[in-house]
């Protein structure tokens, strides 16, 4: 075969794989380029923070003034009680609490704004030091009173390694859901016709989930065993953490499998799943607080159920919070899982109708 023949064959290959090539060479790079706009700064300037009055004497003007100053480096939200703000802090609705004292407008008064952060939110610990320092500088001269900022760390200290083990469990679960299970089912596509005659694809998928959902506990147990061996202080086997991990697996794998059925197990389906995996990793703020890199990324993360799965897993495994604290998050994850399964059901029905 001459080079010309081979080049002609390549041209035909391009024609037959046009959709995949467009996805790989055009859409993916474009998405990647577009996604960089979500990374605008390396200090957290848009993270949500809570502003609460220190006591009943604090005026609305004082609260508004602190909110105004805080808006330079965060997205302040008002809370009327300290307890509610702390609940929001541990649920990662906010990443710091600013307790506003009375007397900001009193000439010569000596007042201290307390900045409360959680020790377990390790990636925010160093940035919060910088924020406290910057804020002190900004406040000096802004108010008639002599204002200082005191940073208080609540909760138990955790190392970055402990924090990352918690994150790693969810990351690996996402890889299993988007890559491994779809691959296993795709390998069995050649037997689908017989399965459909002798049984059904629904039963095949039920069997897959009956096997793989409990199997997802194996990597969790492995993570937990190694963490225990390294004397890490986290409990990945806490019921809430396990439930969040398994719901993540079922929901994401249902979406990934749905895509495989919709694309009839073509390469383009695998690429779409890879794109979704990287998109979810990049935009769910699994490691850094929402708003760390840009307001856009914060807004996207707040729409991602996986962002909340991570918060629940971290809250129950790393912070030892009760699962009940995240009842609404569990409801969201359960709803997302049902939606994923409904998508899978529709995709399988479409696949069978087009067979």
């Amino acid at each position, binding site marked *: 075969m001459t080079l010309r023949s081979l080049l002609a064959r390549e041209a035909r290959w391009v024609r037959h794989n046009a959709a995949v090539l467009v996805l790989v060479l055009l859409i993916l790079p474009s998405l990647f380029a577009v996604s960089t706009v979500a990374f605008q700064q390396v200090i957290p300037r848009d993270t949500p923070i809570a502003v609460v009055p220190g006591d009943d004497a604090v005026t609305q003007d004082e609260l508004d003034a602190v909110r105004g100053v805080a808006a330079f480096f965060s997205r302040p939200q008002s809370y009327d009680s300290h307890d509610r703000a702390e609940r929001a802090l541990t649920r990662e609705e906010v990443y710091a609490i600013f307790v506003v004292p009375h007397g900001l407008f009193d000439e010569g008064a000596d007042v201290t704004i307390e900045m409360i952060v959680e020790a377990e939110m390790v990636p925010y610990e160093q940035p919060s030091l910088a924020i406290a320092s910057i804020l002190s500088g900004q406040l000096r001269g802004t108010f008639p009173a002599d204002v200082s900022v005191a940073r208080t760390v609540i909760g138990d200290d955790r190392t970055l390694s402990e924090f990352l083990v918690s994150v790693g469990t969810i990351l690996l679960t996402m890889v299993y859901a988007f890559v491994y299970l779809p691959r296993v089912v795709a390998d069995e596509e050649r*037997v689908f016709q017989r399965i*459909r005659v002798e049984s059904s694809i629904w039963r095949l998928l039920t069997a897959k989930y009956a096997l793989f959902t409990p199997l997802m506990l194996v990597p969790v147990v492995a993570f937990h065993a190694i963490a225990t061996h390294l004397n890490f202080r986290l409990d990945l086997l806490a019921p809430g953490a396990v439930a969040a991990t398994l719901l993540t697996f079922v929901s994401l794998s249902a979406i990934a499998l749905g895509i495989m059925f919709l694309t009839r197990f073509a390469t383009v389906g695998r690429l779409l799943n890879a794109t979704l995996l990287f998109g979810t990793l990049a935009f769910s703020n699994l490691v850094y607080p929402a708003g760390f890199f840009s307001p856009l990324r914060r807004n996207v993360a707040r729409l991602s159920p996986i962002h909340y799965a991570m918060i629940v897993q971290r809250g129950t495994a790393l912070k030892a919070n009760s699962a009940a604290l995240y009842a609404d998050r569990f409801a969201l994850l359960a709803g997302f899982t049902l939606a994923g399964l409904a998508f899978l059901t529709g995709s399988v029905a479409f696949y069978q109708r087009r067979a």
Partner: protein
Amino acid sequence: MAAIEFDGVRKRYGDVVALDDVDLAVETGRCHCLLGPNGSGKTTLLNLLLGLTRASEGRIDRPDGTIGCSFQQPTFYPGLTVDENLDVFGSMRPPPSGEWRGELVDVLGLEQVTHRPAGELSGGWQKKLDLALAFLKRPTIAVLDEPLDDLDDRSKRRLRRFLADYPDADHGLLIATHHVDDFADTLDRLTVLDQGRIAYDGPIDDGAAARERYLDLIDD
């Protein structure tokens, strides 16, 4: 007795009519041969018959659990051994007896390869496994798509004998093939499909006559 009946069945894929107004009865006690040139609608008819696709119009009576199938492309779990494949599919709808499974393994000569991964077998062995899976539950109607493809002459002879004995009061065969002569001793009913319509459907005495009839219809 009719085990499967098509009544005015039409199947469309978009604007393309793959099958048009098909009336057909597949009966027990018979070896029913389905013939047709490429693109005549045979695969669509088999898919409808197996419940793999739905009719656009018309009615198909297909009692559940009475059909076994052997596909043109052998279909099994390639990572499992021959024995494991028989176990897995046997457990979905159990064979009538262990003796029946043994008989199938013997007729098809599969005892030599029972412990080998099915995906590593040659084309002929894979076809035999596919046939074994088709007959495993001793179906009322066994639907076979080119059942002799890839088989050596000795295996073809054994399989033809087995097929000749299979139809009885409770069991029947539907064979889709281009090689009607191969079933000269077995077939007793012929359906010829052409351009999605039934060109001929009726009893026939022998394979040679069937072939003549088929060629006449197609040439016309």
